[in-house]
């Protein structure tokens, strides 16, 4: 679960990582009071989850009330899935650094990365100046040690005067990572101000979905999702991704779904959406069908090859869903694995041909969707 910038900054503030003065508003009406509190010049930042906000015109620097009103209106009308607008004091920037913490699956530690060139995306940093990225590994059992953080800061060459405050910020950032069981915490840029202070210019935090049961404070709401189908799927714990093609994929097993996804693309079809109802979700054929029906798909392609996710149970669910929901699109099905004989009988009872071969199913779905796109 990704947090919005304003939420990340709240967590930073709670643990005393320096952040700019700011106000969060959910409605353009609040802009007057917010800018009065913050003062001019200030920055308006759309609270959306996608990156590249600057280029998309979702971050605006404003220096008077007129600009503030017009830019706020512009952002509110332009941004999609925006949770609100952050109004933030304009910080005097001397230099921008990059710091983050993620998991290192190879060594079984947390990895803290820092770079003396912040502000740009970590991918660009990694591509353009990989030698400037420095890393330390932190044993979660032992916890973070100040000498590690100090060493990292010395290695990126920050000013001696900033070692003390920088060490404290990174030690605190590690606590944010641990306390919230984050997959990622990132401050980019970590700003060195003209008056030689450090302050978090932006904040990214991604909470581990598997650990959210231990962190009741994080509640997923509609604002985190691009559309109803994604939100509904997430509520059910069903992996779901929205695309804009013709063929709906309702498959069981992540690897198999990815493979079907590739095959559809390879053979010239287009994917409308990606729904994976294997594992603990194999009973949820009806719910999956409801989600598929929220989209305007031309054909539904079902591919499974399960063990515990029994073919007969899935087929039964699909048959019931068809009877009850009467989906308007044709269905192609390759349902295999445990109990596949009964599954095939059930499909035949609905006049769906039970296919065995995945490639054949993909080809048939493409044909039914209107054939290969050019």
């Amino acid at each position, binding site marked *: 679960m990704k947090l919005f910038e304003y939420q990340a900054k709240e967590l930073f503030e709670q643990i005393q990582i320096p952040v700019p003065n700011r106000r969060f508003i959910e409605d353009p009406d609040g802009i007057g009071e917010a800018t009065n509190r913050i003062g001019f010049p200030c920055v308006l930042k759309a609270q959306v989850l996608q990156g590249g906000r600057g280029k998309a015109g979702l971050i605006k620097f404003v220096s008077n009330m007129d600009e503030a009103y017009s830019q706020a209106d512009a952002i509110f009308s332009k941004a999609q899935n925006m949770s609100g607008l952050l109004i933030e004091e304009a910080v005097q920037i001397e230099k921008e650094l990059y710091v983050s913490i993620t*998991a290192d699956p190879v060594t079984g530690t947390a990895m803290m990365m820092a770079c003396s060139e912040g502000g740009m995306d970590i991918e660009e940093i990694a591509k353009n100046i990989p030698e400037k990225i420095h890393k330390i590994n932190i044993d979660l059992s032992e916890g973070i040690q100040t000498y590690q953080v100090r060493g990292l800061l010395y290695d990126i060459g920050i000013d001696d005067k900033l070692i003390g405050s920088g060490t404290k910020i990174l030690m605190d950032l590690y606590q944010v990572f641990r306390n919230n069981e984050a997959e990622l915490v990132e401050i980019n840029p970590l700003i060195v101000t003209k008056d030689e202070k450090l302050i978090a210019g932006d904040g990214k935090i991604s909470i*581990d979905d598997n*650990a959210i049961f231990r962190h009741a404070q994080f509640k997923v709401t509609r604002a985190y999702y691009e559309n109803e189908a994604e939100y509904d799927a997430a509520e059910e714990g069903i992996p779901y991704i929205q695309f804009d093609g013709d063929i709906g994929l309702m498959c069981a097993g*992540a690897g198999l*779904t*990815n493979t079907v996804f590739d095959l559809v693309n*390879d053979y010239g079809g287009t994917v409308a959406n990606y729904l994976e109802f294997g594992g603990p979700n194999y009973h949820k054929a009806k719910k999956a069908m409801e989600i598929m029906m929220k989209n305007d798909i031309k054909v539904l392609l079902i591919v499974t*090859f399960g*063990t515990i996710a029994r073919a007969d149970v899935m087929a039964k669910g699909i048959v019931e869903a068809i009877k009850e929901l009467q989906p308007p699109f044709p269905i192609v099905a390759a349902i295999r694995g445990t109990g596949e004989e009964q599954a095939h009988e059930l499909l035949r009872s609905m006049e769906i041909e039970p296919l065995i071969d995945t*490639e054949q199913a993909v080809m048939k779905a493409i044909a039914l969707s209107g054939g290969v796109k050019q």
Partner: protein
Amino acid sequence: MSIILDQSTRVLVQGITGKEGKFWTKHMIDYGTNVVAGVTPGKEGQYAAGVPVFHTVKRAARNAPIDASLLFVPPRFAKEALFEALEAGIKKVVILCDGIPLHDAIQMRKAAISAGAMVIGGNTSGIISMGQAMMGFFPYWLERVYRPGRIGIMTRSGSLTNEITAEVVRAGFGASSLIGIGGDPVPLTRFAEVLPLFQEDPNTDAVVLIGELGGTMEEEVAEAIENNVFTKPLVAFLGGRTAPKGKKMGHAGAIITAGKGTVKDKMIALKNAGALVAERPRQVGTLLESILASKI
């Protein structure tokens, strides 16, 4: 014959008295697995699937030696159950559950390394030594998939493994061992750590790797081949070649982040190292036929 597990391996099942634990323990025994004990706190003295149950791993181990443990526990208890197995000196552990919290998984990986233990999982169907024994849940009764032979299989997926293994069998081959390392972002054993075992196994002629987008495990395999750590033929099939960036593709571990983890990069690395890479499932069988003289 197989790696990690055979009919002599003395297997413990942690969480044996649960519905799944009991059901699959019975299947494991039917298949030939030497399940010697189970653990469920508070149930010592009972039997599950004919196997004696103990309060703790240590108490089970005091009763009879244990070589390997299979964890049928919910993800939130996986860390503690693993620590219990490691503290009792067990050096092979298979963890099935999906959904282990990331911070737990990191500590589990570290603990496994420190203990010098091979811990397989989480988010896997387990491991099966074809025709001999299994730890986990495999529909071994599906004859068009589960056939003994001389191909080692290692995989990040469940259903896709059925799909690919069926192609291996369709081409006339069979598997020696199938190792499901699981679909988590922190697999507790990595592909490159399984390879040396297949390398040493006289009954494995080639390895089929079933990978996907995300992480760097396939690149590590390419490195192992380049460094001659692994010298047998290897055929790879990777799902998610056309996946978009930044989306979790089913498995938590299947995601392209910070520019890393694309299948295309992985395919190039493997090809450059000398591995054969199948673009479609069907090609796995034909590629095996092209490199192996004998199917048995």
